[in-house]
């Protein structure tokens, strides 16, 4: 009998322990969520968090990895539900998010209008980077072409799209890009082909002008360009499954050139994953796309004021310089607000313009269309 009672008691205790904790968010603890890779999480844990907490005694940051974009959207949905029931969303700060998601979030009033929030550093933000009044661009990166300078003389690197296509065809098997949905380096290479097919005009594509007819016409021309180079790619048309895998193929000397994210490639060279002989080049007729990561503040979060303080802090010169030196990213503020010495050092990768491509329905259309029209490569079946 006693044993049974003991087991029942144990089960009951275990049951209470595994129940979800129904506590409220603590005052003075900013609940921070990210969907970025671990290098970003580490940057926050090792650089931003200690500096911010030292500058603001009494406020701490609770760093939470939400996994991916869908994870952030789920927390956003929770904030909408919390707003409707007047409860605590237990979230204050999204490291990077699109304020248009989940659909209707801005109308529901869960995101703070940061333009109107009176941040002292808001005016320093690079105007190229601003996308919405509800999000705060604070770091960016752009896709470049990385190449092995022992195999390709820097003087002969392709400088525009036509030269790149010519080079790819003249060197079969020496170029690879990853599947557009599996990483932005291949994704933005595909988007560059879409720009190429549509008169090099990024302004043709906006977040809400997708229609099936326009999409099929605009994207169809790009699929033709990409299918045309497919047989000359690595392994007669194979596509790596992510940004890192492309870098790995370059590092193993399998391919000579591949599109890469600026921050990832700088880090890879710094850590010795890629040799110092790795060269970087950007197309001069129209650069490959890049994008900024934009923070979003939760309007109904318990620690909204502290979160705004954090947002302002992230735009300070110290953190923006650290984004360059430690993360290899672009600053979210205009280059005038970065230490002059750093501006000098990184002048090669300072973009004058960063073409972008809208997400929304375009993204789904590109992801589906590429797999249906470009990826199947009949000649490859051996």
């Amino acid at each position: 009998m006693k044993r049974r009672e003991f087991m029942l008691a144990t089960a009951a205790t275990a049951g209470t322990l595994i129940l979800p904790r129904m506590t409220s968010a603590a005052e003075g603890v900013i609940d921070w969520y990210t969907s970025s890779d671990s290098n970003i999480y580490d940057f926050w844990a090792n650089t931003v968090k200690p500096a911010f907490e030292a500058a603001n005694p009494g406020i701490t940051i609770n760093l939470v990895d939400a996994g991916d974009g869908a994870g952030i959207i789920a927390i956003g949905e929770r904030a909408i539900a919390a707003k409707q029931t007047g409860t605590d969303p237990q979230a204050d700060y999204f490291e990077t998010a699109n304020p248009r998601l989940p659909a209707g979030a801005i109308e529901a009033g869960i995101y703070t209008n940061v333009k109107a929030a009176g941040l002292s550093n808001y005016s320093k933000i690079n105007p190229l980077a601003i996308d919405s009044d509800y999000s705060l661009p604070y770091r960016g990166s752009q896709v470049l072409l990385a190449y092995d300078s022992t195999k390709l003389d820097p003087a002969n690197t392709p400088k525009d799209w036509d030269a790149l296509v010519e080079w790819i065809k003249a060197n079969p098997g020496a170029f690879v890009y990853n599947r557009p949905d599996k990483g932005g380096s291949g994704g933005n290479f595909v988007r560059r082909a879409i720009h190429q097919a549509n008169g090099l005009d990024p302004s043709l594509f906006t977040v809400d002008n997708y229609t099936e007819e326009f999409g099929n016409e605009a994207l169809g021309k790009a699929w033709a360009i990409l299918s045309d180079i497919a047989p000359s790619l690595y392994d007669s048309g194979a596509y790596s499954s992510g940004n890192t895998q492309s870098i790995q193929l370059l590092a193993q000397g399998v391919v000579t050139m591949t599109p890469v994210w600026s921050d990832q490639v700088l880090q890879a060279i710094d850590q010795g994953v890629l040799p110092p002989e790795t060269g970087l080049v950007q197309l001069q007729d129209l650069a490959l796309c890049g994008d900024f990561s934009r923070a979003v503040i939760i309007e109904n979060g318990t620690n909204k004021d502290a979160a705004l303080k954090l947002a302002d802090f992230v735009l300070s010169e110290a953190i923006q310089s650290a984004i360059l030196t430690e993360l290899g990213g672009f600053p979210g503020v205009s280059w005038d607000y970065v230490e002059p010495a750093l501006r000098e050092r990184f002048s090669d990768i300072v973009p004058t313009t960063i073409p972008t491509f809208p997400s929304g329905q375009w993204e789904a259309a590109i992801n589906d269309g590429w797999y249906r029209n470009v990826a199947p490569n009949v000649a490859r079946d051996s």
Partner: protein
Amino acid sequence: MTDLTQAAASRLLTDTNHNRRPWGLLLVAVPVFLVGWLVIWPTISAIARTVWRLDAEGNYGFNLSSYVFFFSDQYSLNNLAITLWTTGMCALLLLVICLPIALYLRFSSGRLPAYVQGLAIFPLFVPSIILAYAFIRVLGPNGMVDILFNAVGLPKIRTPYLTPWGPVIGLVWDNIPLTVLILLAGLGNVANQSIEAARDVGANRLQVFWHIILPRISNSVLVALSFSILGIFSAFTLPYLLGPASPEMMGPFMQRTFREVNDPLNAITQAVIAFGFCIVFGLFYVRSVARNRGG
């Protein structure tokens, strides 16, 4: 002393007898409830949501259009075909590789078989993501195999990385331990006496295998294959990292349709179709377990 023990024992016996039924059922209730909640209910809801949904006019009704789309769309059919091909090829290779290992382990003794068994079980402890990157390092382009071949003046291999053979090799390696263990358990049913008896009447090795061993372990073979097939059919990590961009296996295809193409309806339809194939293998397994219990 003896009386006391006997009394205690008999009380324990009646207690257990008395209590066995309700407690036993209660213990089973938790997993049954979990299976119902986390497996059966989502399955029913997925099927219901794909066949009974809003039409263009906003009325709920019976609608099979997403299934019609799947089975009339060459791209989806290619993905289904590559999944079936990969599953079948893996099952065949697993049988060819694991049956000799299991037979060797069953009929030999000493230190060497212990090492062989350890080696055969080893993949169980390697996460598939690590396996995938090790695969790229070894069998990938300019990988270890290429370097070794190059050192002795042989040409490079045609790397299976990013071809349909990539996932096959990875999945077979990953599934060796389970298959070997199940086959080994089945071989435990084969009595040494019956093999000796067969040998006495002049049966050779092949005849012993065909007439004595195989009939005894056919059930285990079926169980081992249905287990690995169920896992391989819905595999995600290895096909995603090692396989070609197109055609893709159902696992990455479903995930991509759901996440990247933002098309839950077609993703659920693909899941229901995958489920339909898996249930066939599942029924094989259930049938053979039931037959075992009955006999």
